[in-house]
């Protein structure tokens, strides 16, 4: 399923321009959408699900025009969505909650629905707490249940917004693997501000900055952008003012800094091989976005 976003803009009340003339094509497979908090990722996700409408521009998904009610309905029939601020009914058990969402997604056959709910509870490792009320669930458990509800209808299009927030490292790795497997025969849009999630699951990505599309290409190309701009240096003093400090590790009474800067931040700084995170920061610097919160 192919997603075409053409010159889309969205301004919210209070004149906050969340998206500004964004054009983007998302092919089948998995696509990472990276950006700092407030970059416009969630707005774009909500536009893709049909929850909100753009002020201008056009979105077509699998040939369905999202400006029409029929188009939105057609897309919602094959959509799985995990929102960033996921909510649940505290008075329902995990199994009941999934059953309710499954009914709303059109899984009318009772035995099929029960089987599917059971399979997904197993998949997200919640089968043993399936009868427990959701009010007692931790953030990570809720997130896993959110993933399960998104998969209920075996969606052709899966949109996940900050899916790994609140997951422990083991769960995060498991979920990333699951996403990659799902993307083999689906379109998956993974929106996150966690660079490592994109680095481990995607080959293609788009980067949003202050509501504008500032990059669309491969993970490898974005990483390459930082070549010659990533430095390692050891210092006992304060961090250098030039560039963006990505890490500061204690090293025998000194501190080893990893810095992204156009020029060496000090005479003894050594160039090092870039990662995707370095590429992202270098891109943000080029677009004067470093004041924004850097991706994790």
């Amino acid at each position, binding site marked *: 399923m192919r997603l075409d976003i053409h010159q889309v803009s969205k301004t919210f009340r209070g004149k906050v321009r969340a998206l500004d003339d964004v054009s983007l094509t998302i092919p089948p497979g998995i696509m990472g959408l990276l950006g700092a908090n407030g970059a416009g990722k969630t707005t774009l996700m*909500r536009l893709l*699900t*049909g*929850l*909100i*409408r753009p002020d201008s521009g056009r979105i077509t998904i699998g040939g369905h025009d999202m400006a029409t009610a029929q188009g939105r*309905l057609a897309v*919602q*029939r094959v*959509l799985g*969505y995990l*929102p960033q*601020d*996921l*909510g*649940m*009914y*505290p*008075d*329902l058990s995990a199994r*009941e909650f999934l059953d*309710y*969402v499954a*009914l*709303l*997604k*059109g899984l*009318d056959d009772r035995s099929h629905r029960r089987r599917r709910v059971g399979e997904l509870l197993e998949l997200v490792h919640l089968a043993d707490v399936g009868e427990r009320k959701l009010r007692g669930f931790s953030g990570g458990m809720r997130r896993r249940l959110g993933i399960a*509800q998104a998969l209920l209808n075996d969606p052709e299009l899966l949109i996940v917004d900050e899916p790994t927030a609140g997951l422990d490292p083991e769960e995060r790795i498991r979920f990333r693997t699951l996403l990659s497997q799902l993307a083999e025969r689906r379109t998956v849009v993974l929106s996150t501000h966690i660079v490592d999630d994109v680095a481990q699951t995607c080959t293609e990505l788009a980067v949003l900055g202050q509501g504008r599309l500032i990059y669309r290409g491969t993970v490898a190309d974005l990483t390459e952008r930082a070549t010659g701009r990533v430095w390692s240096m050891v210092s006992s003093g304060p961090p250098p003012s030039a560039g963006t400090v990505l890490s500061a590790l204690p090293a025998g009474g000194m501190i080893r800094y990893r810095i992204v800067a156009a020029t060496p931040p000090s005479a003894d700084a050594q160039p090092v091989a870039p990662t995707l995170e370095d590429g992202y920061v270098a891109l943000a610097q080029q677009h004067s976005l470093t004041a924004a919160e850097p991706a994790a």
Partner: protein
Amino acid sequence: MTAFAATTSYELRMQLRKPAIWIATVIPYGLYAVLATMGTQDLERLTQDTDPKTWMAASLGWFTPLLAMVFGFVLADRLVRDRKLGVAQLLDVTPSNRSARLFGKYLGACAATAIPVALVYLIVGATFAIWRDRPTALLWAAATFAAVVVPLLLLTGALAFLGPQLMPTPLFRTLIVGIWFWAGATEVESQFPSLAASVLSLTMDYPLHVFFGSRDPAGPFEGAALNVLRPEPTVGTALLSLALILAIAAAILAAARALRFRVSE
């Protein structure tokens, strides 16, 4: 199963699990039981009444003013909580019909709210049936419940779906007390324009008076404001009262629906 049936079923389940609806039923009926032991003039009249129809009507007449307030209180959070909990966006991206979901939620919540009241009222009817050896009291209990409590519940339920979308829920809960006074509990003789004893009364005076022989007033009062809403009590005006209450409930619910989905449509 349709979105309507699914939502009705799950909303009913969730609302029945809420302790508030049981507490909110026990308190007014508990107060009633306390008042009953104090031996008021109304109670003396009630204890001497042997007609199951008028007895059920009279006993219901005691509860209905409080019921409007209780229903408004317990139903006030049902629609707005979807947004507060963050569930609304999850449900809104499903291919289910939105009107069916909203109507299912409304009926499920109202039905669950009615169940504790219905149980208590059934006990009241059964008590009379055994005490006076008049089993028809149970039928009259069902009839008065259907003609009086159900329309009242549907109206206050619709108000509770609309009001908290326009104002904070605690403010709506306060306002429902004001509505309760204005539309049922004030003195009819007062110059203050009140809906008491009118076809729009929240105590359902016309159906109670005409169909079940309640002694509670219904009809025009000399010198009272808004007498235009107090025609002579007849079968026609009692039916008109029921139709008006249900029509207003439908209109309010339609407004609640429009408001709930205004952002995303």
